[in-house]
């Protein structure tokens, strides 16, 4: 498999604090890589190293096959676009002028793609409005348009849906998927909205306390995800008695709800409950999602 970004025992220390410890991570080409971790887990530090904003304490990385200590790394970065933390925009310029600015900086003589990019991100009708008067969502979209200048092969988005309204979130998601499918652009997306990430990512990397805990494809995640039947009953003690008679795996959530982790059909379940006089109020099949998988992997906690 071809990788657009690969690290080799990458470490980053801030004084005595190790922000990244022996990180080994691979981002396959043409993938949408969802980068998941708590606040302070090391996501932004890794992104900063990748972007050349900081230097590794030890270890190395390869960007588009070029090592970080090679002089050609700057050439590789010209095929990189990123929106790290907040979008980098010139506030006294219009959206169009911001894109022209980026094109000039990249040495692109042809400015024809400026209008196309504005159209792609839905900012073509902003006219002479200066970027400082843009909403947060508009700024995010302008940041993405700037990242798209120069036809990048790899785009990094750090919290791309921050501050966006539901419509904006959907638009960014659809844009990412479209660019990935149509232009083959690889994306590295760090997001706290796991549900949103699950809708677009093809691969995942889970980071905790500076370590990559797990990397997997979307298919692997689906295979490893458990199916569960969520039941709402009059008394979970009666339900437990019924389930134990068949030796099924289960988890009591509260005195009226429980999850059953077995592939059992609804009529069988109803028969079992009938035996213990447990009344079923509601019964539905749930698939373990990215959030629950993440919680089971990292061990839960706040600030996901």
């Amino acid at each position: 498999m071809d990788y657009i970004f690969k690290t080799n025992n990458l470490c980053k220390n801030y004084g005595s604090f190790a922000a990244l410890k022996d990180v080994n991570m691979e981002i396959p080409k043409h993938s949408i890589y969802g980068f998941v971790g708590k606040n302070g887990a090391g996501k932004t530090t890794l992104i900063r190293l990748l972007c050349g904003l900081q230097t590794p304490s030890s270890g190395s990385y390869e960007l588009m096959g070029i090592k970080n200590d090679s002089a050609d790394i700057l050439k590789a970065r010209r095929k990189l676009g990123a929106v790290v933390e907040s979008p980098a925009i010139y506030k006294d310029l219009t959206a169009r002028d911001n894109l022209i600015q980026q094109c000039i900086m990249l040495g692109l003589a042809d400015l024809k793609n400026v209008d196309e990019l504005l159209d792609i991100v839905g900012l073509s009708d902003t006219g002479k409005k200066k970027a400082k008067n843009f909403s947060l969502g508009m700024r995010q979209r302008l940041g993405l348009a700037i990242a798209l200048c120069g036809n990048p092969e790899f785009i990094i988005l750090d919290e791309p849906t921050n501050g966006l309204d539901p419509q904006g979130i959907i638009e960014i998601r659809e844009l990412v998927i479209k660019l990935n499918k149509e232009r083959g652009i690889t994306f590295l997306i760090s997001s706290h909205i796991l549900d949103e990430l699950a809708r677009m990512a093809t691969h995942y990397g889970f980071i905790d306390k500076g370590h990559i805990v797990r990397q997997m494809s979307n298919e692997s995640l689906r295979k490893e995800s458990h199916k569960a039947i969520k039941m709402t009953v009059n008394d979970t003690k009666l339900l437990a008695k019924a389930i134990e008679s068949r030796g099924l795996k289960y988890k009591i959530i509260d005195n009226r709800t429980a999850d059953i982790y077995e592939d059992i059909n609804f009529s069988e379940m109803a028969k079992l409950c009938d035996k213990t006089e447990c009344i079923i109020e509601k019964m539905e099949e749930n698939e373990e999602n990215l959030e629950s998988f993440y919680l089971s992997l990292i061990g839960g906690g706040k600030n996901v």
Partner: protein
Amino acid sequence: MFRIFHADIRKMIHDKGFRTCLMVNILYQFFSVLILKTINILYPKIVLYADAVAFNYGTISTFLIFASTLITTTSDYSDGCIRNKIISGASRVNIYLSWAACGLLHGLIHSVAACITSFLCNLIFFLKWDTYTAQEILYYWLIITLSCMALGLFSTTLVMILGGYKASYIVGLSIVIVMKIVSLEVLDKLYPENGICTLTGFKLCLYQFLEKYLPFFYPMMRPHYGLFTYMMGIGGITVISLILGLVIFKRKEIR
């Protein structure tokens, strides 16, 4: 480097801070002459000469250059645009050199604007030259322009070193204020209005050194040293700024 420089000049021209400082520069020249002319009309004994107008810019030049470069460069940092340049594959050396060139350009543009405004004011108000020849005035503008360019570079380097934090404003403007106070003290002691200079020994040497080789002092007085002396001071601050800027910015971790 030239594509970054091209982009930076474009940004500088569009920058509200730069435009405001340029406007303040021009309006200050114009209104100060207008006020002086009004005084002249009301009290004909007080004669207004073109010399006074020409040397007007020197009183605010350092503050203007620092404000202009601090606002422009700090916003480039805080808005993430320097970060964006690095991400886009620009080398840190090129980014710094481009901004250093912009710092020089700030000084040049402000000085040229002030020079043109002062000459226009002379034409508008029919002012005559008193004691200075055209050659002396041109020499003054040459020295003040070069010193403003060097100070623009120094101020830009300060922001690049401090990393675009608001502290850049505090440090930058504190330097201007301290230098203003020091220059007033030094020049007052070296050239007292009444009597002769009473300084001796180390203090005299130190004060003369500051006056000769610190470009912060140049706009405060009519030039009275040779070009070589002034170039030593201007060259000195330029080289020190460039070396410090390159060494520190190359290693700096960007926010």
